[in-house]
Every structure is written in C-alpha cells, then in structure tokens.
C-alpha cells in the first residue's frame, strides 16, 4: 500500500477577532481535523461559510490567510511535516508541490501581464522547467482544458478572455509546475451555471489525465459529487462526516449531512393565474444612458396577485435591468408598466407615494441593503413612520409584530446589522419591505449570497408570508432549484429577450428550446455520473466558449 500524499492530524487553526468595543481576543476556528489523501485522488471539502474549509485547504500549503494562525497539529505532505519545515522548504512546496486555484480568477490574475507569463511563472521560478518547456506545457494544458486557440490564448491579457476561460487558465497555472496536489477553492462558484459545467468538466478531465491529487473546496454538494472520490463534511471547524462520495450522497449518516443532501426540496404546487394581473410589463425595451445597444428587447410578462413570477437567466441576461425598469430607476425607451390596473410613470421620482409603497424591493446583498449605522428598529420602523405616520408605542408594537413574522422575536430592535448573521440580515430586509404593506415585492437574487440551509429557511419564510399577506413576488434568480421551490410562473431570459414564458409546469416540461434545455440541464444534480450524462446530451454550447 502506498503512503498518503497528504496526512493531516489534529489540525487546529486560530484567529484573532476584533469585536467592536471589546478587547481583541483569539478564537479557534478549526478544532482538530484529520484526513488522508492518497496520490491521484480527490477529496471534497464541503460546508457552509465559516465551516473552515478554505482555511484547511490553505493549511495544506502551510499558509494562514489574513491573521489566521495554525496553532496545532501536523500536516504531512510527501512524508514531511510542513508546519515544522523551514521557510525555504515551504517556498519550495508552494507553487511546486502544492498549488492553488482561487474562487475569483478575475481578481487573482494580474491585469497588466499576459496570461502565458503568469501561467508559467511558478514552474520557471521553481526551476522545474525552462521557459520554452514551461510554455509548451502550458499550451498542452490549455488544449487539455478545452480553451479556444490554445496556441495563442497565452498572448492575451486576462480581460480579453471570458470568466469561465480565465478560471480554466488558472487551472492550467496550477497544473503547470507538475504539482502533486492542487487546492481548488470554490473554482466554479462565481460562474454562471452553464459555464460552471464546462469548467467542472475541464477540471475533472485535467485531474484524471495528469494524475494529480486535489482538495476540492465548495459549498455545493452536487458539484463536489461530480469530481471527488471522498467527501468531508465540515461545520463550524469540526468534521461532521467523512467517507466515499457515494456513501455521503446516497447514504448520509449524520443529520447535518442529510439536511445538506435534501436541501431545496421544498414542494410548491403552482397556482393558476387568477384575476387581474398586479403587474403587467408590455413590450419593454430599455438601454442604459450613454450606451448604444438595448439591454432589454420587447419584454412582456404578467404577474398575478399573491403569486410568484421567477425571472431566470445568466448574468448579463437583463433580469436585474428589468427590475430597475419596473422600479423606475431606469425609464424604458418603449413599452409600459401597468401596476394594479394603472399605468406607472416611467421615472421613479414622479411616482405618487402610494405606488412607491405598494412596490417594494429586496436586494441580493443584505449587508449593503441596510444602513450599518441604523438599528433594526430604525430600519423596519422608518417605512411605518414614512408611509403610515406611526409613532411611539404604536410603531414599537408594529415593529415587534413584523419581527415576529420574520421569526426573529424579542431583543433584535436595538441591534445593528453588523450584529446579525447573513440569514437574519436578509430577514430584516424582508421585514422592511413588508412594513410598507406592498402588493408586489421584487426579490433580486435574495438567496444567492446565502448558505443553502439558510437560503431554504428564507424561501420557506417568503412562501409563508405570501400565503398570509397575499403579496406577489417578482423573483429574479439564476438558480433553477430556487425557481422550482418558489415559482408559479417562469420567464426565462437570454440576451435581453424573454426566451420562454409560462406557468412553471409548462416552462419546465419538454419540448424545450435549445437555451432552456442548456440552462435546465446545467443545474448540478446530486447524483454520481451526472456530469458525463449531461455533456453527452447537450444541444447547444454554453456562452463561456
């Protein structure tokens, strides 16, 4: 039996925190983790944010990011404990034996240097290859990763290739020095779903062909199931479950793993359109000031009271622009918006206050959607004061009612946003929208920034509120699992046009147009071998190519 390439024993990692108004103190963020990784195998590290998965990944390069310190344990790579190794040894290790692929390739590449120079830099400086050899190797990696024009792409600058291509360039960068181990830190998270699948396939092929071992870090169990041999589930710096991929996906033992596997399984039977639509967009065409092309072309959709219209599409498909047109932040060039039977004026400042009140918005990033210097009480209380003139005890009572509705309860009124968790912040934003007693709430990617289990809670809350308040949602998202969970009707957008529009069942049942087929089939499913099946049956290339 061969020795493991990486052997981690009792790894403990600490960090110093600086809570406002308190003395800085040390906390432990990883509490003793053990694992082995055999040469050529892939271990998936999965968990929510704060689980310590990236921290563990970086520890395998003997590195602690941003004030993080490795406080205990052993990390053996190629038969030596790298935590005890000298700086010179560690320098040999990083970029030589172990390399790293980060989440945002766009932020990690130097925009002022050609891709080839950056891809071959580590291999050359580590003395593994000469310049010529390294470049030949890079070209062969570009070819292996399915990049267009492998012989010339190295001459381009990072901004001249797409996000999915750049992520593959980064994989080539990591593989170029012939490492024994690559740490993939959420390599596909920032990509569109149809691009993600190509990058995933490229990474999987490259790992198989080069025989390199990998640590694959992600929060998406369905993604990791496609590439790893083993999976370790982490939560708050502790190992929850560790086993072969098949066992984790199909026979999870721990409750937490079971919850992760069954996430997004909300069953939401659709409602048929009934009554007068609360919102009708008719032939909307819009462009941004100072540009010469339309971002939206002839968009016509309708939304019925108490129902949810999901607007689905990739980044750049115009779905958020549609929200800006409806809210009046971007007056359309053509078309009209009919809200609750009356036509809305195109620009927001000229709308009467009742229109503003009945049309509320919830944002993707709850962090930036709330003023960090206002308490939860002020944030929720302001619409009450502004629209209904509530004051004093009456206002307090209503704020508490709203907090109860979003399942937060007592003691939250005096907190600042910084003192809330991600899910709690989004709940407060929901309460702020609800406070206005709106007929329609525009939800712009409200669950995209949240961990899967938290997002599930938010979706359930939104559905409950819809049932009790009869509010309609215009739900903008790129995530089809979310759409299945919440929508009554769906509009699929592609390059500023509505590609497919109808009730949920209609849109999600065949026959599909090519784009909808691509979009639907690209959503990772939690089963082994899904990736190969999809790639074998596709009708259309994704935009990333």
């Amino acid at each position, binding site marked *: 039996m061969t020795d493991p390439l990486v052997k981690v024993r009792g790894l403990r990692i600490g960090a110093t925190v600086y809570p406002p108004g308190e003395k800085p103190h040390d906390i432990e963020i990883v509490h003793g983790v053990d694992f082995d990784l055999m040469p050529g195998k892939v271990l998936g590290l999965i968990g929510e944010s704060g689980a310590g998965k990236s921290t563990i990944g970086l520890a395998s390069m003997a590195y602690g990011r941003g004030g993080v310190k490795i406080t205990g344990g052993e990390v053996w790579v190629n038969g030596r404990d790298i935590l005890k190794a000298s700086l010179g040894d560690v320098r040999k290790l990083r970029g030589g034996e172990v390399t790293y692929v980060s989440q945002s390739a766009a932020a990690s590449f130097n925009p002022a240097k050609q891709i080839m120079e950056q891809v071959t830099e580590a291999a050359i400086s580590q003395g593994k290859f000469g310049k010529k050899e390294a470049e030949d190797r890079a070209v062969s990696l570009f070819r292996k990763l399915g990049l267009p024009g492998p012989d010339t792409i190295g001459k381009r600058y990072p901004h001249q290739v797409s996000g999915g291509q750049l992520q593959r360039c980064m994989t080539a960068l990591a593989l170029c020095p012939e490492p024994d181990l690559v740490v993939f830190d959420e390599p596909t998270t920032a990509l569109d779903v149809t691009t993600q699948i190509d990058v995933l396939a490229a990474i999987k092929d490259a790992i198989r062909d080069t025989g390199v071992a990998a640590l694959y870090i992600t929060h998406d169990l369905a993604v990791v199931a496609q590439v790893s041999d083993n999976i370790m589930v982490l939560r708050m710096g502790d190992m929850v479950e560790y086993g072969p991929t098949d066992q984790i996906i199909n026979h999870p033992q721990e409750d937490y793993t079971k919850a992760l596997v069954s996430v997004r399984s909300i069953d939401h039977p659709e409602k048929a359109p009934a009554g007068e639509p609360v919102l009708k967009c008719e032939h909307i065409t819009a462009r941004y000031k100072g540009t010469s092309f339309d971002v939206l072309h002839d968009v016509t959709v309708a939304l019925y009271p108490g129902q949810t219209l999901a607007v689905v599409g990739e980044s750049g498909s115009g779905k958020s622009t549609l929200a800006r047109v409806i809210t009046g*932040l971007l007056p359309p060039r053509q078309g009209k918006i009919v809200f609750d039977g009356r036509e809305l004026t195109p620009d927001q400042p000229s709308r009467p206050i009742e229109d503003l009140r009945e049309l509320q918005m919830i944002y993707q990033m709850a962090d930036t959607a709330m003023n960090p210097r206002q308490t939860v009480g002020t944030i929720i209380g302001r619409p009450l004061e502004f629209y209904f003139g509530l004051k004093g005890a009456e206002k307090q009572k209503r704020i508490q009612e709203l907090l109860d509705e979003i399942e937060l309860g007592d003691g939250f009124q005096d907190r600042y946003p910084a003192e809330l968790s991600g899910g709690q912040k989004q709940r407060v934003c929901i309460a702020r929208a609800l406070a206005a007693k709106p007929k329609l709430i525009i939800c712009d990617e409200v669950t995209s920034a949240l961990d899967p289990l938290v997002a599930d809670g938010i979706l359930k809350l939104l559905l409950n509120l819809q049932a009790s308040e009869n509010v309609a949602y215009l739900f903008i998202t790129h995530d089809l699992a979310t759409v299945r969970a919440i929508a009554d009707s769906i509009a699929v957008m592609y390059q500023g046009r509505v590609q497919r529009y109808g009730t949920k069942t209609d849109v999600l049942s065949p026959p599909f147009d090519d784009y909808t087929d691509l979009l639907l089939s690209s959503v990772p499913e939690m089963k082994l071998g899904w990736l190969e099946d999809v790639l074998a049956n596709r009708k259309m290339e994704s935009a990333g190519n």
Partner: protein
Amino acid sequence: MLKNVPLSAVIGLFITASYFLAAIFASVISPYGMAETVGDVWEPSRIGYMLGLMPEGTPRPEYWLGTDQIGRDLLTRMIYGGQTTIFIATAATILSFVTGSVLGFLAAVTGGWFDQLMSRFVDLMMAIPSLILALVILSSIEATVLTLIVLMGLLDSTRVYRLARAVAVDISVMDYVEAARLRGEKLAWIIFREILPNALSPLVAEMGLRFIFMVLFISTLSFLGIGVQPPLADWGGIVKENKDGINFGIGAALYPALAIATLAISVNLVADWVLNRTTSLKGGRG
C-alpha cells in the same frame, strides 16, 4: 468608559481640554488684564530662573513667562491670545465643515449640473492659494473677528467639500441609499440619515487636521498684521510683536509656537482615537 482609552488619547484629551478651558476661563485665571502694562520691557521669566538658566545672584523674576515688548504680562497675553485663536479657529472649522459637507453631500446625491457647477467652482477656488486669496480679500474689507471667521471658514470649506463629495459618492451608490430613494425619501433624509452617519469617520479625522490648519492660518494672518488687530491678543500676533526680541536672546516669541505645536499634536491624538473607535474597518487597529 475611560478604561479603554489608550494612553496617547488620554494625553491628547488632557492637553486639548486644558487649552480649551484656559481659553474659556481666560478672564478668571489670568493674573492681570489683557492689555495692562505691568512691568518693564521683556522682563525675564520666572520659569527660566527656576530651571537655573540665569546667572547666580539674579533676583527672582515676578512674572511666570516674563513680559512682552511693552511690558505686559506674557502669561496673560498667552491665555487671552489662546482664547482668540482657539475661538476663531473653532468657529471657522465648524463653518467650513457645515458648508463643505452639506454642499459636498448634496452634489454627490443630486449629481448632474449642480455637481458640475459646484465642483468646477471649487476647483477654481482651490487653484488659487488660500493665503493669497485671503490677503487680497482682507486688503479690501476690515479684519474683524467675524469677517475672519467667515473668510477662513468659506475658503477652507472647499477642501471639506472635496472630501465630503468623494466619500458620499461612494456611499450614495449603496443599496440602502437606493432603498431609501425607492421608498420616496426626501433629500434631507438621505443626506442626514443615510449618508452622514456613514461619512462621519473620515470627516472627524479631517476635522482634527483642519482645526490645526485653521490655527496656523489665523496665526499666519496675524503675524502678517492683517489678522487679529491689536490690542486684542492672539498667538500669531504675539510672535509678531516679540519677534525682535529673538535678536537679544529673548524667547518671548517662542511660547506661542510651542503652544501651537502642542495643541496640534494633542488635537490629532484625540482625532486618531475617535477615528479608531468609529471606524468599522476590520483588523488590527488597536
């Protein structure tokens, strides 16, 4: 509360507070009247005597800091001078921050032609050195305490405008400001309730620095003889009056310089501490 205050801030607070208290209660703590001639020209200081800086056998001087060029008690002049200097600098700083930040926020929030007009006008003003501009303006109007405050405040508000606008432009594109606009909030709410609280940290830090520049500005004007007019005392004026003494080894002109330096350092120690307390930046800013 005072337990968490770092030593530097305690020192800063103590010295700043002493200067301000001395300024406020000048008429109570001063040993003599402001313009009262009490002794001979440039009598030696008692502090120098106590430090043993004088030859053996000299009699013990009567005045703590000695007297000035026409025999007024220098300690009294320094206290009254501090009152004038600190009052003018404080009032001008407040004026420049109120006008500068309100206009800066307004320009950032409304944008368009108002922003263009204001910003270009401010560029124009900043292209002319403020000291020269002040000299020109003061040559045509009478220098009273009020005109000095207004002039210095408005000239300096261009700097504050630039800072406030830059900070507010970043804040006004945040989602919470958009949310407030969508709610239908008026301009005043957006500026004072959404933007101002988030712009306070850089403004406070700048305020410490600006206050000191004001002290230097008014001292410069007085030294040139177009600032605070005699018989009113101020630190720049005291330097001017006593500068000839340096030729004879008389240190009277150095006391105001020392006062300005210590005030500058201590105010900035306090501003640094306030900045650290209110900043929401993560990481090690003790």
